[in-house]
């Protein structure tokens, strides 16, 4: 990993919630965190402590940053989108305005931006679309044609369809059950969009299975995939070693790398998708330091 990544500045702030609202199946929170807001780039994430200083729930929950407003009325603000899947995320969802949350960020690597104004397709699965809107704005400022694809199981699990229309040059929606947009998966509509727009880059954020299929479709159509992964993390800052995944480095060698500091954004064709299976990621036999007979 590069020195620059580790030197990247980071803030730890007790952030006041100033707005919280339900959006479909999700909760959209705005917190005052000027240190984070000033530094963040699209694709980076924040790690939130759960339950206050004496909480028995120790591990932070990580969320990609949906939006920052470095000079808002309340000072710099950061917005995130949360899906309550367990008691920790439920606690965050239950925060009311003026409650505080301990926030660390921005963390991880941002989406790399193309130097030339190439067409880009941004694909979000469920609330994985959260970081794509300000990415879309940054890309369009560089002269890129930007189309977005939002997919989810059902309409209430889509996030940001209206915002996508404001942020991009074209939006395609898919749902598994057909309750909104085209029935099917994002990978069903992606080939046509890449071909029609002559896209050079496909950005994705969402479940691992979706990121794998985005990578395959991009590769088959001559585009580069940049995917932001969702691995479970205990710390988010690079010290716990729990969020590792097998990724091929520039030297062609596979290593178990931390998705919190070397990711969360990876080039799709560098991820060892063959190692992922049913919630497990095994260590590929050819990875650096892989277990010999008998295991670790």
């Amino acid at each position, binding site marked *: 990993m590069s020195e620059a990544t*580790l*030197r*990247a*500045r*980071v803030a*730890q702030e007790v952030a006041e919630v100033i707005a919280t609202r339900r959006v479909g199946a999700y909760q959209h929170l705005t917190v005052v965190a000027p240190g984070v807001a000033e530094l963040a780039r699209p694709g980076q994430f924040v790690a939130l*402590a759960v339950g206050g200083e004496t909480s*028995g*729930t*120790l*591990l*932070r929950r990580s969320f990609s940053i949906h939006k920052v407003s470095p000079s808002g009325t309340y000072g710099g603000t950061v917005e995130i989108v949360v899906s309550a899947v367990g008691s*920790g995320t439920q606690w965050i969802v239950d925060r009311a305005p003026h409650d505080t949350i*301990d926030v*660390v960020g921005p963390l991880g690597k941002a989406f790399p931006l193309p130097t030339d104004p190439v067409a880009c397709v941004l694909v979000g699965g469920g609330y994985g679309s959260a970081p794509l809107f300000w990415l879309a704005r940054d890309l369009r400022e560089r002269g890129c044609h930007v189309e977005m694809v939002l997919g989810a199981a059902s309409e209430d699990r889509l996030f940001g369809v209206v915002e996508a229309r404001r942020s991009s040059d074209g939006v395609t929606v898919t749902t598994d059950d057909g309750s909104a947009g085209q029935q099917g998966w994002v990978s069903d509509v992606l080939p046509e969009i890449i071909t029609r727009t002559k896209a050079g880059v496909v950005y994705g954020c969402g479940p691992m299975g979706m990121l794998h299929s985005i990578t395959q479709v991009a590769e088959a159509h001559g585009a580069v995939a940049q995917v932001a992964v969702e*691995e*479970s993390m*205990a*710390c988010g*800052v*690079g*010290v*716990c*070693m*729990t*969020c*590792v*995944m097998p990724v091929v480095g520039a030297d062609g060698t596979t*290593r*178990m790398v931390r998705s919190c*500091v070397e990711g969360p954004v990876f080039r799709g064709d560098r991820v060892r998708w063959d*190692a992922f299976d*049913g*919630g*497990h*990621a*095994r*260590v590929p036999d050819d*990875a*650096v*330091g*892989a*277990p010999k007979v*008998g*295991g*670790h």
Partner: protein
Amino acid sequence: MVDLSVDLGGGRRLPNPLMTASGCAANGRELHRFFDVAELGAFVTKSVMADPRSGRGTPRMAETPSGMLNSIGLQGPGIDVFVDEDLPWLQSVGARVLPSIAGSSSTEYAHVAATLRASRAFDAVVGVEVNISCPNVANRGLVFACDPMASAKVIALVREQLPRDIPVFAKLSPDVTDITAIAAACVKAGADGLTMINTLLGMVIDTDRMRPQLGGVTGGLSGPGIRPVAVRAIWQVRQAMFDGRIPTVPIIGVGGVRTGRDALELVAAGASAIQVGTVVFNDPSAPVRVLRELCELLESKGYAHFTDAVAVAHGR
């Protein structure tokens, strides 16, 4: 102002008793973004073995009440990269370093210690912690710290490789019938101090999938939930020292320390230094916060020297 300095052997006084815990702080750069790692009494690095090691597959963690299970499997760069990159970096920022070393055989421990000694940044090393108690090895029976003879052999070989002024600390497991027997064997073999405790072996079942939650099936339990186990282990070993069953050596206390009060609890049980581990995942600046809180607490209780509080709960 309380005198926080402490002598853990080797004739080098540390400015304070606060340390990171091995495996909870990586090798320094990550936490240096949150606080100056040179402010700590010592920085304890992640256990390093002879060769690069991928660690286990995922999932590697499971959250538990006031703690977590981890199943990392000693992922690391190997001692050659450690002495070429990590140790010189720690030296460059002025950190005092307590490297943690591990091996799958006693000769591997000795090789790692010898490589460390021969390295260009060895001046930054204030002691070596010998991890004989990591539960995340393929065969649980390989945990050296469950057997006094195996523990003694590793400690003796490591002790031989290092200069006399570099204290060697044996890190012990609480998952044994009598921790004082292991402690005695380690001290007799040449350990200059003891670090207590490593994680406890535990397991969580994912009841959605009806299978073990960790990829490695079992893992090490850590966090505030295990603090009473650490206090007990430190107390027992310190009592054995008072009773003359074990020569008196410094104990580095570790296990579930979240606040200055928690640190003082381990100190009163007999710890001469304190490591802050899992709580760093909750609060990346916890080591310096705990140090500040401990200092304020000692001051409020009227202690002039940190060392006056060590083991005071015995005989009360």
